[in-house]
């Protein structure tokens, strides 16, 4: 009965999961991915060595500016390498299957095209999750390493202050440094960054459903990435024109996912905002996957 119902619905979560895990395993073994993630981790780990680029006159200001630089640098690196992993990873999913002819073997089995597509996407999303988690962990270590050094200095100053005023000021400085290091809003920034990458991977997969060239997929996805970041500026300039508004609505506004700068500068990011952006991303993601499904189902192989 259950099998019959599944056949009627035409969807099997276990088949999708099997394809997703397989996609993840294949992607992780690829040299391109390994090189990208290695570079990303090395770059993030070395952020504290570049923190001298930060500004500041003395004491606490130097500490806060250097911590800000580390956050800028690491979140930027996570964004750049995340985008590369998302696009390169998703762009080759279908072309590789076609080139290796493994797609024919898979689709010859009782696997629906939608399940195949969804499995491939989930594999790609899992790969991004693993990558972002690894880069975030390295970011956390780099930030803690640098922050703890400054915290130790500030606490020592608080302990050896000459008068009550300087002790209190040093304690306040230590508190400000601690708040800069252990900022819970960084998690929100990373969460939204992941959402953006997942959406970008879905868009790349959509492009690869009607194209056979991986280079074309990567180029188009990169263009959509840049357009997505310029939508906000374009809306400001041409938002009054009906035609422009119609066209601008089609492109996803990827800039709404970027809250890293605001987190670094100390803005509180409300969960309501995160939820709204996540909902926007989820709706767009479902639509892009549905569009990919329509094209992939009709595609001749």
């Amino acid at each position, binding site marked *: 009965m259950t099998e019959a119902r599944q056949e009627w619905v035409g969807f099997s979560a276990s088949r999708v999961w099997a394809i997703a895990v397989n996609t993840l395993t294949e992607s992780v073994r690829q040299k391109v991915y390994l090189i990208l993630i290695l570079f990303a981790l090395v770059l993030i780990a070395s952020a504290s060595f570049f923190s001298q680029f930060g500004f500041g006159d003395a004491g606490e200001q130097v500490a806060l500016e250097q911590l800000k630089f580390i956050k800028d640098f690491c979140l930027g690196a996570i964004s750049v390498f995340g985008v590369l992993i998302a696009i390169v990873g998703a762009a080759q999913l279908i072309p590789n299957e076609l080139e290796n002819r493994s797609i024919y073997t898979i689709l010859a089995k009782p696997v629906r095209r939608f399940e195949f597509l969804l499995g491939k996407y989930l594999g790609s999303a899992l790969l991004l999750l693993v990558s972002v988690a690894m880069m975030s962990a390295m970011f956390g270590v780099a930030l803690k390493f640098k922050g703890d050094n400054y915290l130790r200095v500030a606490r020592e100053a608080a302990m050896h202050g000459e008068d009550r005023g300087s002790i209190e000021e040093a304690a306040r400085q230590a508190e400000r440094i601690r708040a800069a290091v252990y900022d819970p809003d960084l998690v929100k920034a990373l969460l939204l960054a992941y959402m953006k990458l997942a959406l970008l991977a879905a868009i790349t997969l959509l492009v690869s459903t009607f194209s056979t060239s991986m280079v074309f997929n990567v180029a188009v996805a990169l263009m959509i990435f840049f357009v997505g970041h310029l939508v906000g500026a374009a809306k400001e300039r041409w938002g009054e024109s009906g035609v422009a508004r119609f066209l601008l609505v089609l492109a996803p506004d990827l800039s709404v996912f970027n809250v890293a700068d605001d987190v670094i500068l100390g803005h509180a990011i409300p969960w309501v905002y995160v939820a709204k952006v996540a909902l*926007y991303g989820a709706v767009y993601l479902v639509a892009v996957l549905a569009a990919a499904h329509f094209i992939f189902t009709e595609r001749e192989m």
Partner: protein
Amino acid sequence: MRAILSALLVLLVAAWGTLPLQTRIEGQRLRLKFGGVHVTRQMRDVMGQGMMIGVLAGFRGVVADFIWILGHGDWESRQWFQQYNKMQVATMLQPESVLFWDVGAWHMAWNIGYAERTDTSNYTLAQGIKRERVWHERARQFLMRGIQNNPSRYNLYFKLGWLYEQKFNDPCLAAEQYGLAARFADAPAYVARMHCRGLAECGKLAEAYQCWKSLWFQDHKAVHQNWTIVEREIRLLEKKMDIPDSQRIFARQPSKPEPH
């Protein structure tokens, strides 16, 4: 063809369906003062393609820092306008970085201003002073834009007050800005003292006296303040204003006996 049409239709429906949500998100971003990058012609001219891509890719803070360092190079080679442009772009990229506004205004009012005044190509000293004042005004405008972007931080109000005091020789405007800065809980104790002193220098002795008194009546154990200075200033004003004994905080000091 049917597949492509279906795909387009789905994307259109999703795009139009999320329009109210997008409007809400944009509204919330504006309310929360989230600073997206607004691409301008000036930004494009200063940054070039490489840095522009860096900004779009997520390295906004790093690019801003890099532009700031380039600006410092311009200062060393006395390219004031290039430095000015770079300071503008750095603050556009990171409008809420107080340090950029603070140091930028300091460069304009102190370093560039002085260099313009003492430039050997000036025909007269008056010409040098005129050129210097242009940069003072630029620094003032720069700080005011900084305050617009960071209204809830004490630093830039204080710096604007310092600029009014040091470069515009206007203690009244300076006192006003120090007063605004002193409202913030994290402002150092000296900011409140500078506010009171500024009022006295402005000639508003009664307000200055009230200001010092309000400082003096704070809890001396809870508030970290240089009470010796506060006491000295109150004594000075009480003497200067000839405050009646009944209203004084500190009793008159007995006058020294006349030497025989």
